């Protein structure tokens, strides 16, 4: 019980001061990513808003980015990615494994 106000005191300021997360749009059309490459700031959380604009379902997946999302046609969703170290991180559509992967460049 004593901890509760303390917990609130730690959480509340961060809610109040929170700036909106940098966010990026990503379209998937039957396994093709647009844009195929996203530049993001390293060391900072960010949001990717994905839209499946294709005819069929896609599975937006990346182990290093810790994403696994099945999206039916017409569905939009978002993922928030943890702060990345500088480098490039691939993602792909598991339902179209023959197509080139997309990439996130963290700088």
């Amino acid at each position: 019980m004593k901890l509760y106000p303390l917990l609130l005191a730690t959480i509340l300021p961060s809610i109040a001061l929170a700036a909106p997360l940098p966010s990026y749009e990503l379209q998937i059309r039957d396994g093709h990513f647009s844009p195929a490459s996203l530049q993001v700031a390293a060391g900072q959380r960010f949001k990717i808003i994905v839209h499946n604009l294709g005819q069929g379902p896609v599975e937006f997946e990346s182990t290093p980015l810790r994403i696994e999302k099945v999206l039916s046609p017409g569905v939009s969703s978002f993922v928030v990615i943890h702060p990345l170290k500088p480098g490039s991180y691939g993602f792909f559509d598991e339902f179209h494994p023959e197509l080139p992967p997309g990439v996130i460049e963290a700088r």
Partner: protein
Amino acid sequence: MEQALLIVWRESVEALLVIGILFAWLRQQPGRRHAMAYLWGGVGLGLLLAGLLAGLMALAGNWMNGPAGEWFQAGLSLVASLLILQMACWMARHGGQLRQQLQRDAGAALQQGRLLSLSLLVALAVAREGSETVIFLYGASASANPSSLALGALLGLLLGLACFALLQAGSRFIAWRQFFLISEWLLILLGGALLISALDRASAQWMALELPEQLYNLIGTPLWDSSVLLDDGSRVGTLLASLTGYRAMPSTLQALLLGGYWLLAWRLLRKPAPVLCSSLA
């Protein structure tokens, strides 16, 4: 066609591993006919659930990808990973014994409650990956040549069944004790992978909130980077990640949770102390 073959095969590997190991183990148990009914019942229930989940993703895609759906999917993985721990513990107590000993002890091993968790585990394993296969095939059938798609899916399933047969053959050729030692640990690795997959879904939800920075370090910041040795974004790395929970850049929480799971499994399996195990199994 190759695409359908690969996807159906890969999506079925996890479930077939669980079914195959449990099948090989149950075959050695007294009163197995009764138990096998639970195993196949679990498979049937899993197929039904796979269809339902696929329907949910198709009809309520926005809900399934929203917080409620993500927590629901994380919950499925978490329950499956705990059931694997329980099952492996149960096997460790009864699997390594000789048949004659088992028969003297008949009835003790295969109790109703345990058989229900066996059914549930099999159902979850089939449903999780099965639903993705259903969605893939449904989507592909609209665009691809249906007969070539069906052929690919059939071949993928046959390849999966061949793996199942290989596992059963292995249980005959390799010494009984060794086979169960290996298969118990294969199950534990898979259980760890399910746990990490549940954690990833949960942490993606936490990432979207505004929590104190220290928490984000715990669930986000990599503890080490072994991507030079094995990149988890590569094809082999991704497969290994889905079967063992391997991550090239694990967060502190991922490493702690997986390490803790293995340690708990090791304690439960190495020394199946009646107290520890009976509380679980």
